[in-house]
């Protein structure tokens, strides 16, 4: 692991909504190939940080560097195309489309034909569409959704909807995957299964993961590095053991509010 070149770096990140500082002077790094965790009590500013990284919110102060380049003033879709994709706390699928079409749509960056070529169905259209279809199929197969590809996304059971959302995010060939409470509403069995999937995805697609989670077993089980937030400020930063043993963290989060869910 190259300590000198983090994949993602937040520098003194601040986001104010009116007078409220939802995120206050937060700095941390995500190393290439790592799984990092972002934890904190409800309202600590975790999802706000995700929204800042993906460009949904504009940064008030500070910088976000992805592969050494600032991305905080870019359009959200450009950040996504540049290699940062995410899932949502409250699942956001293309509900009325089939499982296949959800992934097929998200694969659009892998095809290179223009509007003229699609309207007149020129040879390039057919060639590139074939590539897209194959890519969507292979992604669904890897994620174990190929049996479900014809179902409407909103008819899927909850766990599979989460998995489909991750699959859709993978369709953009991201370098960094942001998962916002992927295990929310899951039982321990499903959570364990999810942990396995996240680990496999990271290995197979050679990417880094930053995950927000309240399930401590999931976070402690898979994260190399954990960043703890409380009221928008950094509380602790380090390995799973060092964070779990930090008295401040125990007081604010693990001890005082056992099982914040």
């Amino acid at each position, binding site marked *: 692991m190259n300590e000198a070149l983090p994949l993602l770096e937040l520098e003194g990140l601040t986001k104010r909504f009116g007078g409220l500082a939802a995120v206050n002077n937060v700095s941390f790094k995500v190393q290439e190939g790592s799984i990092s965790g972002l934890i904190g009590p409800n309202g600590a500013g975790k999802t706000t940080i995700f929204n800042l990284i993906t460009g949904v919110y504009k940064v008030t102060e500070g910088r976000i560097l992805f592969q050494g380049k600032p991305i905080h003033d870019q359009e959200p879709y450009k950040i996504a195309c540049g290699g940062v994709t995410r899932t949502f706390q409250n699942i*956001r699928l293309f509900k009325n489309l*089939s499982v296949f079409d959800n992934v097929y749509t998200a694969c659009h960056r892998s095809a290179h034909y223009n509007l003229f070529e699609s*309207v007149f169905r020129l040879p390039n259209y057919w060639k590139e569409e074939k590539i897209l279809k194959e890519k969507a199929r292979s992604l669904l197969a890897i994620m174990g959704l190929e049996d479900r590809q014809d179902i409407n996304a909103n008819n899927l059971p909850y766990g599979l909807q989460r998995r489909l959302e991750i699959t859709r995010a993978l369709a953009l060939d991201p370098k960094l995957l942001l998962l916002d409470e992927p295990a929310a509403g899951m039982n321990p069995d499903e959570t364990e299964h999810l942990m396995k999937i996240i680990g496999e995805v990271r290995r197979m697609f050679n990417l880094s993961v930053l995950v927000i989670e309240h399930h401590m077993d999931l976070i402690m089980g898979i994260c190399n590095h954990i960043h703890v937030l409380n009221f928008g400020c950094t509380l602790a930063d380090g390995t799973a053991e060092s964070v779990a043993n930090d008295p401040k963290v125990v007081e604010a989060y693990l001890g005082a509010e056992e099982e914040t869910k």
Partner: protein
Amino acid sequence: MDYIQGIAVLIGINLIAVLGLSILTGFTGLFSFGHGGFMAIGAYVSAIVSSRLDLPHPIAFPLAILAGALSAALISVFIGKLTLNLKGDYFCIATMGFGEAVRIILNNVNYVGGARGWANLPQFTTWWIVLGLCIVCVVVTWNLINSRQGRNLVAVREEELAAQMAGVDVFRSKMVALIVSAALAGIAGALMANYIQFLRPTMFNMAKSTDLTIMVIFGGLGSISGTIAGTILLVSLPEVFRNFAQWRLVIYGLAVIVIMVGRPQGIMGGVELTPSGIRKIFAARRAKAKLDAELKAAEQGEVA
């Protein structure tokens, strides 16, 4: 026969405009109540080209249609830049204002007849031209929707934020939808002007814009075959009941209400009446049934 053909021409002209609106409303999820305005621009610009420029016949008409489509598209770029960042209902209200503004401006331009109207335009539009253009427009719309650009439009309709996170340039996608829909409305306006040979700004009032939107919703949002069915039914309905005089518009209204209450998703409801479209419905049902059976089996296994 002439009468039937006349209705067919009207259906064809409306179909072209409604197809465009179907892309914008049915597939991209943007409601517009100002497409009468784009039709008006297409109609008046094409009428100027075909009747004021003294061009020889074989070039005048194609040029008039082209000018109608391009001018409507050009204005839509301007309108889009101003309004496409508006969310939900606000965009709808802005388009309504645009449609009314076009009508009121035309009322005051004496060069094109003002509020009195503009008569004695040449009749270039024939049934065969309308039929040909309809086929071209259906094919173009179909190809657009079934491409990566078209799927991006649907993604924007389904979940704008998620579309953005999937790398879709939402603003550009909306712009493409608006430009194509305005161009098609422009073509429809051009055909109309050169068919009925008379133009008046009130022909393109808000009722006209609403009519177009109703046809899209009646046929079913997100379905091209639904759009075609909806247009054919709703344009011919008042003609079929012409004997009932003033009651025919009541019947029209009743038909719309019955569909909206009984089948809110429209006649086709997002489904395409094509072999692959029908296969898709059955595949979805089969896969759902299989999933339900497996989940049930798993549940029973746990209980046992």
